[in-house]
């Protein structure tokens, strides 16, 4: 590689890294507890439910949630597939569900008995919610998601340029060689190269899947405006279903869904009127039971008045790819040991980010008064 190209790649690596480092550090730090969110929340659960196999009616749970919060609308109900807990989500209004999603009350119930569950008193719950919001959008909704997606693209560019630079700058070193007898900066440079190249595949996968996840919002909006709108076209123009509407049983809607699609579980129901669902349907989210299918959600539309399944609304193309990419970002698909490995990779990435900043600062200190830093940024191995 000639000097000009080396200089260009070096500049790409330096600036894509520097611009994104602070945010990537935040993502790595908030990502650590999120990897173990199930374990942490379970550990702090004051009264963990134990599955007895019994299933309390969801209709009864929804009625209890309404009694507890009469000033709110039930926007959805989540049936945890892994724990015997049912959570009812309630918002002040449909408009508030869009404008202030954080103003959502979550009421948890024991899925076996239907009794209120003390999940709301779980001290880990609030902490995890803060970590999640910081990780997903930094409390800035869609602009925050797109910004973090851009930072993810910088991260991928930094990885690619780092791999390109790895060749010329380690050419005279054996693999894994760290020149410990040399100055601290050189030692850290060798460690930076070693840790980077060893974790490059993991970091690339997590970076790309992170960017994909940040695009979920706009893609989901398009899916709702096209695919779902086409399926609900026959109901267009009909008056919305108000609070007084006599809705079909949710239990019946869930049973009808699982009867129509026996290879899928119904996990979440959006109420008719929910801006993220459909005006006249229960929007029932299902997940498959197969190794891959379990990560692929498929909404099913159930007529909210008759309780009949009217259509499935599979998410194709980019949204399906995002669905499948999620486990590769979360690391939650191979048991606790995989989560531990994920956390270790994450920790190595934090070291990578920190050492990158150190190398940049150390290099600038070495060249006081230099207006334009001469390339290459990294010192080739001698």
């Amino acid at each position, binding site marked *: 590689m000639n000097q000009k190209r080396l200089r260009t790649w070096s500049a790409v690596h330096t600036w894509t890294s520097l611009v994104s480092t602070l945010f990537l550090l935040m993502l790595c730090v908030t990502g650590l507890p999120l990897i173990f969110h199930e374990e942490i929340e379970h550990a702090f659960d004051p009264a963990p439910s134990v599955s007895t196999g019994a299933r309390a009616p969801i209709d009864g749970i929804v009625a209890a949630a309404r009694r507890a919060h009469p000033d709110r609308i039930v926007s959805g109900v989540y049936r945890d597939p892994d724990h015997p807990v049912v959570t009812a989500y309630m918002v002040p209004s449909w408009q508030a569900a869009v404008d202030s999603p954080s103003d959502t009350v979550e009421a948890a119930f024991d899925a076996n008995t239907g009794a209120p569950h003390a999940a709301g008193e779980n001290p880990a719950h609030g902490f995890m919610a803060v970590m999640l919001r910081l990780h997903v959008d930094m409390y800035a909704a869609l602009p925050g998601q797109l910004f973090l997606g851009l930072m993810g693209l910088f991260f991928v560019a930094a990885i690619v340029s780092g791999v390109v630079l790895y*060749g010329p700058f380690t050419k005279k070193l054996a*693999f*894994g060689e760290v020149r410990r007898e040399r100055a601290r900066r050189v030692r850290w440079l060798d460690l930076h190269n*070693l840790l980077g190249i*060893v974790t490059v*595949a993991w970091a690339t*996968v997590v970076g790309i899947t992170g960017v994909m996840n940040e695009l979920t919002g706009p893609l989901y909006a398009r899916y709702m405006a096209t695919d779902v709108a086409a399926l609900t076209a026959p109901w267009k123009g009909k008056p919305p279903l108000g609070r007084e509407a006599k809705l079909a049983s949710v239990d019946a809607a869930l049973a009808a869904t699982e009867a129509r699609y026996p290879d899928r579980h119904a996990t979440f129901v959006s109420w008719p009127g929910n801006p993220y669902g459909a005006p006249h349907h229960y929007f029932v989210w299902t997940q498959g039971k197969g190794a891959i299918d379990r990560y692929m959600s498929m909404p099913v539309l159930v007529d909210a008045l008759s309780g009949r399944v009217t259509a499935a609304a599979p998410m194709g193309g980019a949204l399906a790819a995002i669905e499948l990419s999620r486990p590769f970002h979360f690391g939650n698909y191979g048991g606790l*040991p*995989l989560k531990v*490995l994920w956390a270790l990779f994450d920790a190595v990435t934090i070291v990578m980010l920190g050492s990158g900043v150190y190398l940049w600062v150390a290099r600038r200190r070495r060249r006081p008064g230099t207006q334009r830093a001469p390339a290459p940024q990294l010192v080739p191995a001698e």
Partner: protein
Amino acid sequence: MSAGSQWRWPLALGALTLAGLAVALLGEGGLWWALAWLALGLPLAVAARWTWGPRRPRRTR
């Protein structure tokens, strides 16, 4: 050092990582997950080896 010998380890560890990620997803637990843990653990073990382990003797050039 030839490009082949320089990139042999990085390519092998990268391929191992990707295989581990895929096997964990496609496997239904048991042996498959154990293989995935091994595949993903090896790159980290290599990093630990060269970060904290005994030094490699410097090659004579």
